[in-house]
């Protein structure tokens, strides 16, 4: 019989201690941790991996980033211009396919050419809007040898 009451007493005691904790939060409003997002924007730290950005003028078109990318999110076409320098004509990063792992940023030999911006608000309505185009567009046709170094060997075999 006493065990019956003891069990009841423990139950009540443990429930009351539990409620004591929640009332501690319930009463004093200063314990709120949530931020009001549109008004209060959290500044991401400097190593934040947001949207990829390419400074196309200093890009040497070496396709190191396209090769290291585990999900082939970077499509890169380079054309050799008049003074034999490889110029990236098409440099598309498909943000819907990219997994933001950062392997390309580490693989890029040029200092500060391919890096992550602190932008994380780039939602779009259609998938092709998510493809960011950094390419130079068609170079003016010159007399020099135009050798198009396409980089799709890997993709055909997979698709």
């Amino acid at each position, binding site marked *: 019989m006493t065990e019956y009451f003891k069990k009841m007493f423990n139950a009540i005691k*443990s429930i009351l*201690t539990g409620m004591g904790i929640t009332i501690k939060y319930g009463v004093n409003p200063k314990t709120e941790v949530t931020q009001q997002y549109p008004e209060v924007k959290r500044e991401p730290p400097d190593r934040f991996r947001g949207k990829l950005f390419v400074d196309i003028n200093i890009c040497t078109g070496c396709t190191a980033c396209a090769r290291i990318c585990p999900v082939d999110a970077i499509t890169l076409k380079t054309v050799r211009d008049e003074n034999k320098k490889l110029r990236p004509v098409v440099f598309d990063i498909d943000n819907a396919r990219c997994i933001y792992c*950062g392997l390309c940023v580490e693989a890029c030999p040029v200092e500060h050419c391919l890096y992550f911006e602190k932008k994380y608000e780039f939602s779009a309505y259609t998938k092709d809007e998510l493809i960011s185009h950094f390419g130079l567009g068609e170079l003016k046709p010159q007399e020099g040898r135009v050798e198009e170094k396409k980089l799709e060997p890997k993709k055909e075999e997979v698709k």
Partner: protein
Amino acid sequence: MVNVDERFMEVSMGPQHPSTHGVLRLLVRTDGEVLTAARPYIGYLHRALEKIAERVTYPQFTPFTDRLDYLASMNCNLAYAMTVEKLLNIEIPRRAQIIRVIMAELNRISSHLIAFGSFSSDMGAFTPFLFGIREREFINDLFEMTCGSRLTYNYIRIGGVSKDLPEGFIDKAKEFLDYFPGKLKEYNELLSYNAIFIKRLANIAVITPEDALDYGVTGPNLRASGIKWDLRREEPYLIYNELDFDIPIGRGEMGTVGDAWDRYMMRIYEMEQSTKIVKQCLDMLAPGDYTAKVPKVLKPPAGEVYVRAENPRGELGFYLISDGSTKPYRLKIRAPSFANLSILPKLAKGVMIADLIAIIGSLDIILPEIDR
């Protein structure tokens, strides 16, 4: 006409169910509230990671290991990195080892916090889930400061870590470690020793030590059955042998040894131990380089290696066969939740539906690891 046994009702606790911790389908045969059988159906999240492993080079596979157990991706990176390092048998600098232990243990705390939170919301108490998430945000901020991402870190690489600790990391981590034990005590008062919680979990789904070994159950579930087995202590890797922390095992405080409450409490005790470990590691940190010299194009020698590490959910093992090329020939991922889930049909006989939810919560399975 299929002869349906009228007495039982086949309910499909389908892939979309509030408390199956992911896309798990349980075909449950119930007689009123009591279950007579529960058959798990998995494979809804199968992304063929092992097939991808044969198509990408060794360093390229690291981001995929984040997606194995996304709540503990640091530990998954660690296990994969250690497998390839075993193959290359290169020596990791001390500072990288210490950083790896810090990251792995912080990730263990954040994974256990999710396990604690989702388990309590399965039992009906929603508030502890949000308290758990609030604490986890501190750890997410620490990870974001070091590697830039809050969930899939891709931080521990073959040969060491990708970036050194940013300045300000150590005192921010210390601030969290002093703040956290007080919160743990609060969880215990709020939930662990709550009479209804204990009544719901004591003596439910008891796993005997023989069954645990027979079904390959590992991690907190194995230790809850009374077997003192933790890879960090039995097969020490990194610098775990220099650290002093004890391994909590199930003592059946609230019922028999190995019941659902013991499995739950293992994770609470382990969080305490992990804070102790991280504190010691922070003090041991000495300047040094954070990664070993690893060639850009990695061609490990041909061979077969099976390496395993202690993940928050159990033993994660990688069986790697390499044929000397830049891509693994075969990579078998031994997921802890795969084995932990295989014991569910045995436990689910004769329990009630509410207990089935308690069993799934106490086993703390996670589906991307099961389906790979």
